[in-house]
């Protein structure tokens, strides 16, 4: 059973599709030791995550990417790129 299928089967796990495509609730995710234990088992013993999508979701989620992104202006990345590489006038 993959990690995310396992998580879906948890009754006490909140599944939220409302937050900008981030369908996991970070606050409720790591509170369960059992899930963390399973995660460790998958990564270290079961040969890792199974698919690219699963990995992408895990990275986005575990790195708290969305939480961090939301604390800064939406166009920060493009502003920084422009600042670093100004277009020739």
């Amino acid at each position, binding site marked *: 059973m993959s990690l995310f299928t396992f998580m879906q089967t948890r009754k006490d796990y909140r599944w939220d599709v409302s937050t900008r495509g981030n369908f996991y609730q970070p606050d409720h995710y790591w509170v369960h030791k059992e899930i*963390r234990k399973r*995660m*460790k088992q998958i*990564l*270290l*013993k079961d*040969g*890792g*995550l199974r698919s*690219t999508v699963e*990995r*992408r979701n*895990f*990275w*986005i989620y*575990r*790195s*708290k*990417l969305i939480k*961090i*992104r939301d604390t800064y202006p939406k166009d920060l*990345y493009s502003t*920084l*790129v422009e*600042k*670093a*590489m100004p277009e020739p006038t």
Partner: protein
Amino acid sequence: MTEIGKDVGRTFPDLRFFQKGQPGQEKLFRILTAASFFRAHEESEVLGYTQGMNFIAGTALVHLQQHEENTFWFLVALLCEHKFRQVFNFLSDGTFRVLCFQLGVLTQVYLPDLHEHLQRQKIPIDIYASNWFITMFTNDLPFDMAPSVLDVYLLEGHKGLLRIALSILTYLKQELLALQFDELMVFLSHPNARESIFRGLDQYWLFQTASTFKITTNLLRQLRRLFIVREKLAHIKQCVSPEPRQEARAALQSEGEVDSRRQL
């Protein structure tokens, strides 16, 4: 910026996506430049750029479906939220030196014969550990294995990196034991020298072996304290060693001579 440009050219040159004329190089350059200008707070310093970030960002870019902005935020999250930025602190009491010390002690415990051999050959840990930790093994391990290391880091942090380092050392043990100083230096400091050996490495074995090393947060905390105490002792020893005393005496004497001349 020139440094970033150079490193982008050296990032995964075997992958078509990162070859000249392909979108990979351009995207990676933009991500790294933007990250180097990023400030966590208005008063804080910019993130800057350190070698090694290119490999991590490159791996992330490929696995985040080549989405530039997501890769940028992932890199920022990894460096700031997950404190990977600390690994780039090469100062005497910085995280990098602490990690090297921890790896040294753990090697002594789990792989005593290898530790003894490396000690006898006078191989410093940072020769191989620098490349491993700074690039999060992404420059060393085969490309398909690198993302799994990032998975483990996201789950376990520095503990995970140490576990994988020990697992790799276990894998390389027989080769390393057969080598002498010169060969060891070449083998450990050049990732290309290890490339053919890593081709035979089984991902399942690597992570399963990594999971067998018992490393606790408490143990790492204690080792960190021990390292700090050792550094302080070494500093005190340096201060009270005869050489600086002689220097100080010589300085005092010369000052005295100047004073006596003045009096004359």
